[in-house]
């Protein structure tokens, strides 16, 4: 432990860059997947096709995906955020679609009977009921992107991966372990935080905690 105490500012900077990558990619993906997920949840055949397709795309390794984006977008934060957002999309669309499909049909009919318009029904009835699923999706997406985000450093996007790659290049184990452990802690913290939030929501909506 020689390098870490002297370079806490570097680690903090890398952590903040990492958080920026994670939040921007999951944020962009959340907006897109809410639109697609709500649209697809009412169309079982489209949704089934989307689930199969996203499952296949999700298998593509991160390094390969980033490499495929470089000819189109160059290197830097843009292709990195695009790639990370793509992984988040695959997770979120699935979960959001399932959340909206889990809303009982009689609840929807009751809302229609009370004269709710489509927009108001989605906002006031469906979204709150689907919320535990949405948070669950955000949890998995965050944890996945925090891990994959380390590879983004390779295409000049910054983040905690920078510390790991420097450790590889300089044959400096302490940097590799510091970067790796910090990323793991971040992932475990995100997992715990969103899981607690999800449990709270499930309890509040009267469903059983999954």
């Amino acid at each position, binding site marked *: 432990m020689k390098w870490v105490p002297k370079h806490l500012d570097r680690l903090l900077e890398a952590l903040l860059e990492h958080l920026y990558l994670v939040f921007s990619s999951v944020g962009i993906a959340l907006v897109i997947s809410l639109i697609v997920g709500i649209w697809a949840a009412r169309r079982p055949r489209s949704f089934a096709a989307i689930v199969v397709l996203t*499952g*296949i795309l999700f*298998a*593509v*390794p*991160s*390094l*390969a*995906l980033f*490499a*495929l984006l*470089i*000819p189109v977008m160059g*290197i830097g934060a843009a292709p990195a955020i695009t790639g990370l957002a793509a992984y988040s999309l695959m997770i979120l669309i699935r979960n959001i679609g399932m959340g909206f499909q889990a809303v009982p049909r009689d609840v929807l009919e009751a809302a229609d009977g009370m004269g709710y318009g489509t927009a108001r029904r989605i906002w006031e009835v469906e979204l709150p009921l689907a919320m535990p699923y949405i948070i669950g999706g955000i949890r998995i997406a965050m*944890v996945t992107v*925090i*891990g*994959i*985000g*380390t*590879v983004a450093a*390779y*295409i000049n996007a910054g983040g905690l*991966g920078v510390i*790991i*790659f420097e*450790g*590889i290049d300089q*044959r400096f*184990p302490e940097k*590799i*372990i510091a*970067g*790796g*452990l910090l*990323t*793991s802690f971040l*992932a*475990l913290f995100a*997992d715990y935080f969103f899981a607690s939030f999800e449990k709270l929501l499930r309890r509040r909506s009267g469903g059983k905690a999954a």
Partner: protein
Amino acid sequence: MIVIDAMSWIFNNSGVFFNAFNRHLLMCVLSLGIGFVIAVPLGFSVARAPRAAFAVINIAGALRSIPSLAILSATMPFLGIGLLPSIIALVVLAVPPLLLNTIIGIREIDTSVIDAANGMGMSAGQMLREIELPLAVPSILSGVRTSAIQVIGGAALASFIGGGGLGDFINAGIAIMNMPRLLVGAVPIALLAIFAELAFSALERVFTQRR
């Protein structure tokens, strides 16, 4: 056209390409095999012991939170660079999903089935061969699929620690900013992962229907 350039590069350097491709495949198959031999028996032995299972599940969960890149690079200080540290790191990536799915598969077996087998006077060995193993297969296969995806992606990163494989072309492509070379690495890696996903999903379906 980048794609045509990439194809012609493969055609003109087929020896180099297939060396890397075979190495990539070798790394994946070996580590998945070793991971399977470690994880499945371990899963079976702890599944019925609550405290051991709790410990194993938590350790596997913690291992899963470590990014692949960190696991691969962390083997370097202990084992240097090359094929061996890459394979060891890939085994570490392969074990957690296999272990978790094996335990889930055994725990999902209906207790009434186990009770009936006990009542019929089956020995522990018979129970394992004739009941637990066949019923846990779909879940284990799901673990194999997850591990295969992890390992194929991890093997792409092995290039950073001198493990070779298709990642070498991505590395070279970025170093000299040569787009076709980038695709020579990226496209086969992506196709390999998609193929593994589809093949293991199909296997899973076959075994799930057979029950």
